[in-house]
C-alpha cells in the first residue's frame, strides 16, 4: 500500500485516479478550502462578491490642526485640511477616527512601537519589541483567508522587510515583500491560474506534489509530538503554513470562475543597482508604492488573497528627501516649528506625501470595476499610524481611517470622535464588520466589547 494514500482518501483517490490522464478538465469534489471556515457556506458561483480586508500604514501620524479639522462630536462630514487635502475626493468612501485613547496602564510608551502594537493587537507591550497578541489582520485572515491561494500578502514600499505590522507574536512577525518584482512573482508567477484563460490544464504533478506534502505533514506531526511543549507550540504555524500550500495546490487543480475584474498586470522592471541604494528617497518610495498598490489591488481583484497589508513608510519613517541630512522621523524631532506656519514645514511635507499616497491607494482600488461597484466597495481598509503628533510621541488620538464600503456593511463619510474611549473600538468594529466572531478584544484598559455602531449597517 502506498503511504501517499491518505487515511481519509476519497478526494485524493479521485485525484490519483486521474494522474495518468495527462491534461484534464474536471469538476472535483468540493475541497474544504472552498467552504467558509465554519463549513456552512459555499463560496461558489452566484454567491455575493467576497469582502476583503486590507491594512495600510504610514509613519509619523498627522500634524495637529493641519490634517483633519477637529470635531466636538461624531457626525457626517470630514473636513480635510492642507495636509490631507488629497483625501477630499474620497470623503464619502472613508471614515476618520479621532480622539480615541491609548491607555498604558502604567506601562511605558515605547516610542513609535507602542502605538501601532496597541492599535493593532489590543495589548500594549511591556517591553521594547514585545508583541503578545495577533494583529487584527491575522484574526480576520483566520476567518476569511483560507479560501484563497494566499492567506495574507504583505508588502512595503519603505524598503524595510522586517518593518511589517502583521504578527502573531514577537517571534512570528511576517516579513513584507519590498521588491515590486518579487511581489509580482509571488502573486502572478508560475503558479498563478488565470481565471480568464480559455483553457485550463491542471498539471498532473500538482496532484502528486500535494499528496507528498500531505504525507510529509503527517510524518512531521508525529515527529513534532515528540518535542517539548514549547517547541510544539512554536511549530503550530508551521503546520498552518503547510496546509496553506496544500490549499493553494488544491486551488490550482480547480478551474477558477471567470473574473472580469482580474487583469494580469505586466511584470515590473527590475530597478537599477543605483536605485537599489536609494529605495528610501521619497520619489522612489512613492513610485514603488504606486506599483505595489496596483499589484496588490489586482491580487485582490483576482482573489489571490482576501487579506492584504501595505506599508507606505515605516514606524520610524526612515524615508528622506534628496539632499536632506535627516529622515522624516528625525525631522519631526529636530526641525524647529515655523512661527508663522505653526508647524515643522519639512516634516509637514512628508506628512502630505503620506496622505497623497493613501489617496493613490484608494484611487487604485476604486479604479477596478467589480460587479455593480468598485473593488474598494468590496474592501475594508484599516489605515493607521503609530503616533498622533510625532514630535512629542503622543499616542492618544492616533489617526485612523476605515475606507471602503465593506460590501455594503459599512457606512462612510463620517468623522467619529472617540471622547477618550480606547482606540481598540475602531479595530474591534472593523473585525465585527468582517465577521470575526469576537465577543471582546484587547486587554486591560484597551479591552473593548463595544463596536462603533454609527458606521455599521
Amino acid at each position: 500500500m502506498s503511504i501517499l494514500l491518505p487515511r481519509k482518501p476519497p478526494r485524493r483517490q479521485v485525484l490519483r485516479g486521474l494522474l495518468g490522464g495527462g491534461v484534464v478538465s474536471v469538476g472535483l469534489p468540493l475541497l474544504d478550502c472552498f467552504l467558509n471556515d465554519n463549513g456552512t457556506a459555499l463560496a461558489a458561483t452566484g454567491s455575493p462578491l467576497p469582502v476583503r480586508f486590507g491594512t495600510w500604514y504610514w509613519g509619523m501620524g498627522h500634524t495637529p490642526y493641519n490634517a483633519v479639522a477637529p470635531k466636538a462630536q461624531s457626525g457626517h462630514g470630514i473636513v480635510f485640511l492642507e495636509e490631507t487635502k488629497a483625501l477630499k475626493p474620497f470623503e464619502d468612501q472613508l471614515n476618520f477616527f479621532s480622539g480615541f485613547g491609548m491607555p498604558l496602564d502604567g506601562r511605558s510608551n515605547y516610542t513609535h512601537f507602542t502605538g501601532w502594537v496597541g492599535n493593532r493587537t489590543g495589548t500594549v507591550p511591556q517591553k521594547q519589541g514585545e508583541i503578545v497578541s495577533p494583529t487584527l489582520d491575522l484574526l480576520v485572515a483566520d476567518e476569511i483567508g483560507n479560501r484563497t491561494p494566499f492567506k495574507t500578502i504583505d508588502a512595503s514600499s519603505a524598503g524595510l522587510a522586517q518593518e511589517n505590522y502583521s504578527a502573531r507574536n514577537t517571534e512570528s512577525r511576517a516579513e513584507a515583500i519590498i521588491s515590486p518584482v518579487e511581489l509580482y512573482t509571488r502573486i502572478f508567477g508560475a503558479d498563478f491560474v488565470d481565471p480568464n484563460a480559455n483553457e485550463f490544464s491542471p498539471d498532473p504533478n500538482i496532484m502528486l506534489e500535494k499528496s507528498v506534502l500531505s504525507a510529509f505533514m503527517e510524518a512531521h506531526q508525529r515527529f513534532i509530538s515528540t518535542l517539548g511543549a514549547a517547541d510544539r507550540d512554536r511549530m503550530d504555524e508551521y503546520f498552518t503554513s503547510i496546509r496553506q500550500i496544500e490549499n493553494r495546490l488544491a486551488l490550482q487543480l480547480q478551474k477558477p470562475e471567470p473574473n472580469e475584474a482580474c487583469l494580469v498586470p505586466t511584470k515590473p522592471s527590475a530597478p537599477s543597482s543605483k536605485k537599489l541604494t536609494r529605495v528610501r528617497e521619497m520619489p522612489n518610495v512613492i513610485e514603488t508604492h504606486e506599483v505595489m498598490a496596483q499589484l496588490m489591488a489586482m491580487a485582490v481583484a483576482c482573489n489571490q488573497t482576501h487579506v492584504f497589508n501595505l506599508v507606505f513608510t515605516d514606524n520610524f519613517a526612515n524615508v528622506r528627501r534628496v539632499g536632506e541630512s535627516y529622515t522624516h522621523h528625525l525631522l519631526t524631532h529636530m526641525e524647529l516649528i515655523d512661527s508663522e506656519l505653526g508647524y515643522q514645514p519639512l516634516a509637514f511635507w512628508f506628512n502630505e506625501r503620506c496622505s497623497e499616497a493613501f489617496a493613490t491607494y484608494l484611487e487604485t482600488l476604486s479604479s477596478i470595476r467589480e460587479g455593480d461597484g468598485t473593488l474598494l466597495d468590496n474592501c475594508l481598509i484599516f489605515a493607521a499610524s503609530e503616533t498622533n503628533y510625532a514630535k512629542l510621541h503622543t499616542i492618544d488620538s492616533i489617526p485612523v481611517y476605515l475606507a471602503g464600503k465593506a460590501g455594503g456593511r459599512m457606512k462612510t463619510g463620517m468623522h467619529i470622535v472617540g471622547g477618550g474611549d480606547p482606540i481598540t473600538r475602531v479595530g474591534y468594529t472593523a473585525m465585527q464588520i468582517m465577521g470575526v466572531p469576537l465577543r471582546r478584544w484587547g486587554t486591560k484598559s484597551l479591552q473593548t466589547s463595544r463596536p462603533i455602531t454609527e458606521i455599521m449597517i
Partner: protein
Amino acid sequence: MRAVFALLLSFVLLVGCEQPEPPTDGSTPAMRRLSNEQYRNVITDVFGPHITVAGQADSLLRTEGLLALGAQTARITPSGFEKFYSMARSIAQQVVNEQNRSGQFQCEPASITEPDDSCAKQFFSDVGRLLYRRPPTTDELAIPVTAANDSAVSNGNFYAGIALGLAGMLTSPQFLFVIDTTEPDALGLSKWQLTSHAKAARLSFLLWNTTPNKMLLDAAEAGELDTQEGVDAHVDRMMASHRLEAGVRAFFTDFFRFEEFDTLEKDSIIYPAFSAQVIDDSKEQLLLTVLDLLMERKEDYRNLFTTKKTFLTGPLARVYRVPTSRPTGNAWEPYEFSQSDPRAGVLMQVGFAALASHPGRSSPTLRGMAIREAFLCQHIPSPPGDVDFSQFEDPESPDATAKDRLEAHSIEPACAGCHKIMDPIGLGLEQLDGSAQFRTTENETVIDASGELDGIPFEDGAGLGRVMSQNPATTACLANRLTEYALGRPLGAGDRNYMEYLEQKFADTGYRFPDLLRRIATSRALYAVSEPANNAGPLQGAATSATTLAIAESQP
C-alpha cells in the same frame, strides 16, 4: 621577602597545573532555525556550488545582542514557509535535472518510468544524513522513496518524484531546525549531554557554519565525540581547515550586526562617493581586517581597535582618500595607514563609522550607542517618549558642531543619564562624517574630537581605539558573545564560574581569538544540557530523547 617567594611559588604551581573547567548548569535542549547563511552553506556542501539558492528566508530576530540567539525562538510564518518551500522546489529541480543528475546520484534507475526502491533509498539515505545531521529513520525515508516510485508509475518520471521527496525533506523541521537530542553524560560530569550527532552539529555550525560532513558524522557514530580526546582531535582538525574562515566570518557578521548594511542608505548628493560598491566593500573590509589580524597573524584581539593594517578596493580608497594601485574594480589589496594618518582600528573604518550614522550626517549618539552595545555588550535603554528634541538642535545654525549641539543633552535630566554614556564616546569619531570620510571642520568650525570612555579621556578617534583596547569590558564582551553564539543561548547565573574561567584563559593566552574559540569548542560546557530533550522523564540509563530512540529503533 617571604611574600614575594609565596607569590612566585603560587605562580609556578599555577603554571604547572591546568585549572579544571568549572561546571555549568548546561543548556536547555532547544531547536534552532537555520540562518540564511547556514541554509546556503548546507545546500552548497550537500549538492555542490552549482546549485543555486533562489531567494532567502525570513531574517532571524536579533535577541540579547545576537541573531544566533534569535534562532532558538524563531517561528516559521506562513509567508516564511512559502519562501522555504519555493527555495526547496527550486533546489530539488536543479538537483534532478539532466545536467546535474549524474553528479548527485550514486545509482541510476533502470528506467525512469519504473519504481526503483534501492536507488531512491540510497539517494535519500545519503542526502538525508547530511540534511538531518543524522541518519534518517525508516519512516523518514519511506515518504520520499514512495514519492519517487509513485511518480515513476503515475507520471512516468522517477526523477520528478525524487524532486518532490527532496523538496519535502528540505522543508521538514528536521532540516530547518537544528534540534538538540540528549543522553545521560557517560562521564558523569553533568547529568545530561548532547548526543554524538547533536555534538557534531554544534561543532560544525560553530566552526564551519554548516552541517557536519561525512567524516564528522562517521566520527560521531564511531563514538569519537564521546571522549575529550576525540573532541579535541576533531576540533583541531576542523580549526586547521580553510573552512574555519566561514565559521569566523559568520560569528563576526553577527557580532558586527552586518544585517544593518542591508538597509544602509546614504544621500547621494551629500555623499556622492558612497556607492553600492562601497557598502559591499566596507563590510568585506571589516571581515578581512578581522581575519588577517585574528586568524592569520594571530594577534591580540584588542589590536583590532588600534591596527593600522587593512585592505582596500578602488572605491573604498576613494572614500578614504588614499592612493591605490587599482583605482577601479573590487580587487583587494593590503594597505597600511601611516603612523601620521589619523585613522586606526575598526571603529574608524567605513563599515562601522558610516553604518552608525544618519543618511546625511554623522551621529555621535548612534556611534556611541553602537560601541556600547556591540563592542562592550552594554544595553542602552530606549529614549523617553515625551522629549522635545528640537531644543537640542537647530538645523538653521550652520556654525555649530555636533559637540556644541549635543551639549544640550547634558542639561536635560531625562536625556543626560543615557547620553552621557554615549555621546562622549561617539564624539571621538566626529572627524569622520556620515560616510566616514575624514574631515577636520564642520560648518567651518574646527572639530574637537576629544571625549572619554568610562572616565578615561582621549583626544581623537585613534585615541578612542586605544582606550577601547584597554577597557576590560572589550575583551569580556567578545568572550561572552562568542560563548553565547556557540551555546545558542544567553548566559545565565549558572555560567558565571565558567565565564570567569574563560575570560581568565583568554587573558592568559594574550587575547588570541583562535585560542578562545578552541577552548569553547572543546569545553564540556558546549555539550552540557540541563535536562533531557522533550522533558521525557527521569534520568535513565539510555538515551531519552524520543528522537534519538526513534533513530535507534528504526535504522534501515
